[in-house]
């Protein structure tokens, strides 16, 4: 039941990301629902579960994007690793800590892309990316993230009584 529900969430998030989320773009930037979910898994799940989720979601995102396979796996995998480590050292509840985690992870995600397009992909990217697009992207993710955390928490709580065993080692 747990894995089935996670698969449904993944299908919904990936479908939304690749279809109607474009309608909510602001200045040509849309939020990254997968990034928010990776941070959620890193913060809420066990260390192994969080890192595993980061790598798998990054890999799927790579498969559904036109970039080089491995860029998102690297970025999401490392984000999941860092935040699953940091969650024991910081109090991650409430809008502000979650928002800060998401701003940091968005900046890291954008920088990984920025360096990969300049090196591996041999493409062009303007400096506007760093001082305009990346800040908007980070703030957008930070604004939408807490809301997604609440929704994912509710789904988790709804599933909990039906599966007495812990979900992938959830720490809550």
């Amino acid at each position, binding site marked *: 039941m747990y894995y089935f529900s996670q698969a449904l969430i993944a299908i919904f998030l990936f479908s939304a990301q690749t279809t109607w989320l474009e309608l909510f773009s602001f200045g040509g930037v849309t939020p990254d629902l997968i990034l928010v979910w990776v941070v959620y898994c890193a913060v809420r799940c066990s260390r192994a579960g969080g*890192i595993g989720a980061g790598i798998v979601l990054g890999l799927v995102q790579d498969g*559904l994007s036109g*970039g080089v396979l491995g860029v998102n796996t*690297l970025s999401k*995998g490392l984000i999941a690793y860092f935040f699953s480590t940091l969650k024991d050292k910081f109090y991650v509840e409430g809008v502000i800590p979650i928002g800060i985690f998401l701003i940091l992870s968005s900046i890291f995600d954008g920088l990984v892309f920025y360096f990969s397009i300049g090196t591996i992909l041999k*493409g*062009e990217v303007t400096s*506007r990316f760093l001082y305009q697009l990346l800040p908007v992207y980070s703030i957008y993710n930070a604004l939408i993230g807490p809301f997604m955390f609440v929704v994912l928490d509710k789904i988790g709580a709804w599933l909990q009584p039906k599966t007495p065993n812990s979900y992938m080692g959830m720490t809550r």
Partner: protein
Amino acid sequence: MPRKGNKRNIVLVLAILLFSLALMTLNVKQEKGVRFLDSIAGVILSPFQNFFTQTIQSVSNSINHYFFLVDVARQNDQLKLEVQRLISEKNQLIERLASQKRLAKLMAHEDDWEKRAVVASVIGRDATQWSKVVVINKGTQNGIKDHLAVITDAGVIGQVIHAGINTSKVLLIVDGRSAVDALFQGSRASGVVVGVGEDECLMKFVPNTADVEVGDPVLSSGLGGIFPKGLIIGKVSQVFRKKQGLFQEIILIPSSDLSRLEEVLVLLP
């Protein structure tokens, strides 16, 4: 104990790095096994993308054609039901007509070329924020292969970068990795149109001596073997002439509205 923890952390980070780098290397070398991952993800998600895209189009149609009539319909329940039915029917017909008009425009262009073409619908966009890629609902089953030109009635939009079984990824001309050899319709000066990951393109390597004005149309030159000669790419929106240096810096607006793509034409070899 902390040493053991540190060791484990280093191993974990190294494992993530190595795995990602291995994937990148295999991908750059175009290994078939890695491309298979792309296809699998596309096959699983394409029905959901189709569903979402069609739902959005229906909702958008309803909002455009129906929303403002709600107040009127409230006056009479029977009339409202009748109006709803008629509007729904009308919307379907308008949509069908619009689609037919777009297809007719596309197919009219087909006669101009000796190449065959496949009409495809855009069903999704890139799963990441930064790549400018769209997914179309036709793949190798329909004769689509990598590196085929993709156009609309307004002009060039990009090229196929990965043809899956029943879906394909199209790299738009505004993506940072896209480069199309081009020339100006008037002056015939040539250059290369590259994307920068935004809504505009950059035209590089145009000599400072070339006579370029804002509004000049830019066409594909036919060099490179992907895009046939003479397809419109866009129009010049800004020209920066440097006092020093060999080339001008030219910004183009693509002729097709790349944020509102619905049907496209893939030119077969």
